[in-house]
């Protein structure tokens, strides 16, 4: 079996079960692919021994008839998840060498379901970025190139950039991502794969390095909708160790997967037509509308009046929560310590944090500290929390009329490394379509829709009601069946 790396999660699971190939062959195939793809810089740590051990366990389980839901499936794990005994850095020099003594709930759930780990995936530092350029370990490269014959290095998006690149380059059949304000969906769109952020609280945040706790949510990234459903099912579930974990049963999303969306009402929010977005984005959006109409859905224009305030709201709330969460990196309990000769405790804190954090992380901590500081708390943070309530209310009202929303995932295709790294606000605008659903805690998926004139993938986003992952997945499946997206990057790495 030479081409196991072509397969997705469902095909690998079924093939191992049916004896078409062994789990070890699968693991070895992906380990070999990773070995040959160092140029992409997608992994921060490779763990072939973990993947092989899980594969051998899967092969033994098959022999004894005790296969688990993900037996034989090797996965990549974003470096934001604490993995027992395996370096976990969240893309930061601050955590260089940190080896957790515990396993995050999400990665633990995946391993308990039989999956193995191929390695840890590179990411923007503490998930703060939209291009992977803020990683302390260097940017991840997208496997995609423009069709102009040039070899300009493109971003795979961020913050789950290593995750996106690994799936698109067939280094892993599925990976974990995390999404605070688009970090699963925007990279999925940039590299032509599928990624879903579930309802806030579906996946436990325990053991996931915290960025903005009221927004952070884990989710899968994979080749198609079915693979995302399978993986999400294994990741999700109530966890008493996370106070915001939802105490609800996990539906069998795969079993109920159906592309039959006849009679569903799908809203097109008019505020998502914004100035300055390239025409190709509108074109692919129109195409997507036509596909869903073809699937029997009713298309309705709707209004989410506070949309334009979502991004500035996010850039108050997320930095505020980050400034609080990242206070834990003090050089005392874990991570780096820089202690100036003869300095006191305060000097140690300041020197440690100056050396350990990168530029964007410092910028956000400072913004967050400012908006929470005495005299500014009401004007900034409290105001943002109120506007956030209005944004959530917009969605609630619209979902009385429609079942789902269809929007672009990102305002452009992937851009070149360095093109936006000197302008924070231009970089933040990447997430203009992704952030509203994050602020409202809603499930949202990005599905590949087509290629632009330069041969780069474009994605569309489906947003659903809280807890209606099934509705989101089903509409995404109907979309996928019509889009027939088969394009893939040519291997140059």
């Amino acid at each position, binding site marked *: 079996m030479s081409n196991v790396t072509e397969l997705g999660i469902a095909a690998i699971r079924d093939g191992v079960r049916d004896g078409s190939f062994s789990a070890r062959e699968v693991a070895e195939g992906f380990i070999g692919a990773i070995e040959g793809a160092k140029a992409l810089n997608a992994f921060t740590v490779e763990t072939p021994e973990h993947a092989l051990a899980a594969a051998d366990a899967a092969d033994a389980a098959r022999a004894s008839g005790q296969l688990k839901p993900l037996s034989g499936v090797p996965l990549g794990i974003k470096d934001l998840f604490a993995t027992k005994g395996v370096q976990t850095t969240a893309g930061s020099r601050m955590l260089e060498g*940190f080896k*957790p*003594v515990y396993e995050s709930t999400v990665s633990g759930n995946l391993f308990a379901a039989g999956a193995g780990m191929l390695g840890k995936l590179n990411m923007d530092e503490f998930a703060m970025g939209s291009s992977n350029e803020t990683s302390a370990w260097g940017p991840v490269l997208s496997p995609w190139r423009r069709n102009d014959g040039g070899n300009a290095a493109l971003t795979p998006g961020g913050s789950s950039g290593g995750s996106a690149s690994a799936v698109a380059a067939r280094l892993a059949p599925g990976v974990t991502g995390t999404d605070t304000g688009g970090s699963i969906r925007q990279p999925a769109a940039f590299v032509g794969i599928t990624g879903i952020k579930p*309802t*806030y*609280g579906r996946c436990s945040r325990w053991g996931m390095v915290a960025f903005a706790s*009221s927004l952070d949510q884990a989710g899968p990234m994979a080749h198609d909708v079915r693979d995302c459903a399978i993986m999400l099912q294994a990741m999700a579930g109530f966890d*008493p160790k996370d106070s*915001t974990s*939802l105490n609800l049963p996990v539906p069998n999303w795969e079993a109920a997967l159906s592309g039959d969306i006849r009679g569903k009402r799908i809203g097109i929010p008019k505020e998502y037509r914004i100035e300055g977005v390239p025409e190709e984005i509108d074109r692919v959006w129109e195409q997507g509308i036509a596909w869903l109409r073809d699937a029997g859905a009713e298309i309705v224009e709707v209004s989410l009046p*506070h949309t334009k*305030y979502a991004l*500035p*709201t996010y*850039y*108050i709330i997320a930095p505020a929560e980050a*400034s609080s969460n990242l206070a834990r990196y*003090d*050089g*005392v*309990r*874990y*991570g*780096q*310590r820089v*202690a100036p000769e003869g*300095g*006191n*405790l*305060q000097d*140690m804190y*300041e*020197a440690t*944090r*100056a050396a350990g954090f990168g530029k964007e992380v*410092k*910028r956000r*901590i*400072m*913004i967050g*500290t*400012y908006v929470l*500081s005495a005299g500014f708390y009401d*004007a*900034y943070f*409290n*105001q*943002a*929390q*109120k*506007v*956030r*309530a*209005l944004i*959530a209310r917009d969605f609630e009202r619209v979902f009385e009329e429609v079942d789902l929303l269809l929007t672009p995932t990102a305002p452009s295709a992937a851009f070149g490394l360095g093109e936006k790294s000197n302008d*924070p*606000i231009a970089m933040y605008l990447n997430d203009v379509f992704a952030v509203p659903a994050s*602020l409202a*805690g809603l499930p949202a998926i990005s599905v590949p829709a087509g290629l632009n004139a330069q041969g780069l993938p474009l994605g569309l986003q489906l947003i659903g009601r*809280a807890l209606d992952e099934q509705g989101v997945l089903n509409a995404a499946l109907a979309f996928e069946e019509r889009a027939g997206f088969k394009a893939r990057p040519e291997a140059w790495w």
Partner: protein
Amino acid sequence: MSVDTATVRKIASLARIAVSDAEAEALAPELNNILGWVEQLQEVDVSGVAPMTAVIPNALRLREDKVTDGGIRKDVLANAPNAEHGFFAVPKVIE
């Protein structure tokens, strides 16, 4: 409002991040740029709106008040940059 280098130094101190003079100079316009941009939220009418506290309705749970783990001092200290005699060690804080 505008952030000057003195304000940058104050925020940096609150955030416990050492900044050089050059960094403070560079950060002031950057922070002003971002704060100027988020300023647009002031135009939203929020009268009668309560600040959001939970995005998905969810009550905080209580658990039984009993010890659920412990006896793992070695694990707790495993990643400490400096641990001595079973404690985290820090620079002297008492003169």
